[in-house]
């Protein structure tokens, strides 16, 4: 076994078909789509096709907008700061609501707004790791709340939030809903006719598209005050020459992800469950969250007595890529906020390991990984002081 990539929640390989589709836009059809000459205009039908694919991919209405940007982090910043800008422009103090298990692109943006005086409410998660719709209902003040931002599926745990209910609650109260859909798109159905969110954000590289391109969905009737000024691109909402090759790539990537949704839900899930069952066979292991409400590709497991970075090291020595939220593995040595919010004990913050599969993961790879995990757990538990006999 050469190498096994089980870190698909971090990023994915680009589907070869996507790469091929992008190719002509680098050296042949490289015109600026805003130009009037043929170099510019010849690109435009392909942008149209990309948009058609993106709209179809999330079942957006033709009257809605999907802004092409650099990534979901940009999209999240755009939406959240737009509401802040509006509050400044309207001289109106607003309250905004988010959860305690957001990706830093959302949580750190809100922390920054707090410094600017915005009242931000942070919703907790329940014992299942889910943001309870009742908590959202209680937190909303229809007179003050302007925006609610919640993660659709969590990047660490894969746990899927009841976003449809959030949509209903926000509608009832006349509050806008923003969902970070990065980990949902390509893994579970994302249907904007079903889920009444006003804004959703996504990144192409999480569904076998290229890095550096993403989308911001804006439902008809919702507005955005731009983060980036300086051009008429994207209806004036996002300045900057559109990255046409990447936009084309993202369109096809989403179409392919849509076609593979069933495969994701059956075959990828099957392999995930196989790996998960094998992990659960090991003593003193806990898997976080009910697998039925998780994205079908994700496992977050805690291995007692094994520090995450050491485990990641061993896996890497054996060619396996996974991810740990262990504080020791981060630049800042800080615990992962999702773990802290889930209150699953300090242990998980140090012993958590995330395995995230993709449609390219094979059964051989999973079998090999199971074998390596068993051996590594034994080796590291031999070293570990956790399981030594008591002395004092």
């Amino acid at each position, binding site marked *: 076994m050469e190498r096994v990539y089980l870190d698909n929640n971090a990023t994915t390989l680009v589907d070869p078909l996507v790469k091929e589709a992008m190719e002509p836009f680098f050296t042949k059809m490289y015109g600026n789509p805003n130009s009037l000459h043929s170099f510019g205009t010849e690109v435009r039908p392909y942008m149209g096709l990309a948009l058609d694919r993106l709209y179809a991919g999330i079942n957006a209405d033709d009257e809605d907008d999907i802004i092409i940007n650099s990534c979901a982090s940009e999209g999240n910043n755009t939406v959240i700061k737009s509401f802040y800008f509006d509050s400044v422009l309207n001289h109106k103090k607003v309250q905004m609501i988010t959860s305690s298990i957001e990706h830093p692109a959302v949580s750190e943006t809100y922390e920054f707004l707090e410094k600017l005086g915005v009242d931000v409410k942070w919703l907790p998660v329940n014992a299942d790791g889910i943001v309870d719709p009742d908590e959202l209902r209680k937190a909303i003040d229809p007179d003050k709340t302007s925006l609610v931002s919640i993660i659709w599926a969590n990047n660490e745990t894969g746990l899927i939030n009841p976003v449809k209910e959030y949509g209903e609650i926000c509608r009832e109260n006349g509050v806008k809903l923003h969902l970070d859909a990065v980990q949902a798109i390509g893994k579970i159905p994302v249907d904007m006719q079903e889920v009444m969110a006003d804004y959703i954000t996504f990144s192409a590289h999480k569904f076998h598209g290229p890095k550096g391109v993403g989308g911001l969905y804006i439902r008809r009737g919702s507005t955005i005050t731009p983060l980036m000024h300086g051009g008429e691109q994207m209806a004036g909402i996002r300045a900057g020459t559109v990255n046409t090759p990447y936009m084309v790539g993202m369109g096809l990537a989403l179409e392919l992800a849509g076609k593979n949704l069933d495969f994701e839900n059956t075959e990828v899930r099957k392999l995930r469950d196989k790996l998960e069952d094998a992990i659960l066979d090991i003593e003193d292991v806990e898997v976080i969250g009910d697998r039925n409400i998780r994205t079908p590709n994700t496992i977050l497991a805690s291995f007692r007595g094994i520090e995450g970075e050491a485990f990641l090291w061993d896996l890497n020595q054996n060619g396996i890529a996974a991810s740990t939220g262990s*504080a020791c593995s981060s630049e800042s040595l800080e615990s992962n906020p999702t773990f802290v919010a889930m209150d699953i*004990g*300090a242990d998980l913050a140090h012993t958590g390991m995330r395995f995230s599969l993709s449609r390219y993961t094979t059964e051989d790879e999973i079998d090999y990984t199971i074998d390596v995990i068993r051996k590594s757990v034994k080796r590291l538990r031999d070293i570990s002081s956790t399981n030594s006999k008591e002395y004092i």
Partner: protein
Amino acid sequence: MAKNDLIGGALWENYSDKVSERMNNPKYMGEITEEEAAAKGAKLIVADFGADSCGDAVRLYWMVDPRTDIILDSKYKSFGCGTAIASSDVTAELCIGKTVDEAVKITNIDVEKALRDTPDTPAVPPQKMHCSVMAYDVIKKAASLYKEVDMSVFEDEEIVCECARVSLSTIKEVIKLNDLKTVEEITQYTKAGAFCKSCIKPGGHEERKFYLEDILRDTRVEMERERLNATGGNKTFADMTLIQKHKEVDKTITESILPILNADGGSVEVVDMKDVDGFTDVFISYKGACAGCAASRTGTYEAIADTLRNKVDESIRVHIL
């Protein structure tokens, strides 16, 4: 900032080959039993330090010859990341053959140096320096168990930054000697705060007794106090704060000017003072009989201005409001 900061991440690229080797194939990992120690007529010491919930826990085993205090053998168990395991492995190795008193002198810096591939390249990236601190602590714990004393016996000074082993007294001294004004400067001068950063301010990787931000603030206050006390009465007018200048001016007015004005039923008070381009502007307001007196803008004014310039400082300019 530099190119590496822009790319970011990659802890492991900064591990020395020795760290990798110790992580992959630890040499001293394991336990020592009572029986093994007894067989050599030695005393078994088992010291624990840290906790799983902190992400670092180590158990150090020593087999000590009670006649010579020499550590005949040492092993360990470690819950921690790669660098924690590698550090524990080297700690055990460094203890072997030393007396307990010698072992107590081993610091985390010795452990880190032993893990270097070349003398000038750190074995671990800055934020991982912290992992070797445990090695230092657990040795102290083992020694305290062997000698049946409290661990604090081995701490001769208050350590603020454990990673770089910088004491409170050193940090204060460096701030004072070099007139340091920022935490970054402290880090440049002493390396304190350069590694896991816990000691910079609360809320870092671990809780600390002292934080550089507090030490800096308190030391600066202390320095200011010392400066004020030292100069005291001998201080030149130019060096005084505005409040001190005001006191000097008021004192002279009360002692030398008011008695004369009061005799004619008048009075004066200082309304405001400002330091402007090396001058001190004193704004005065007349009271009582002076308020309407013609001389208040000529003779009296000249007298007040001259008195203040002569008795207090040349830089004073008097203005009537």
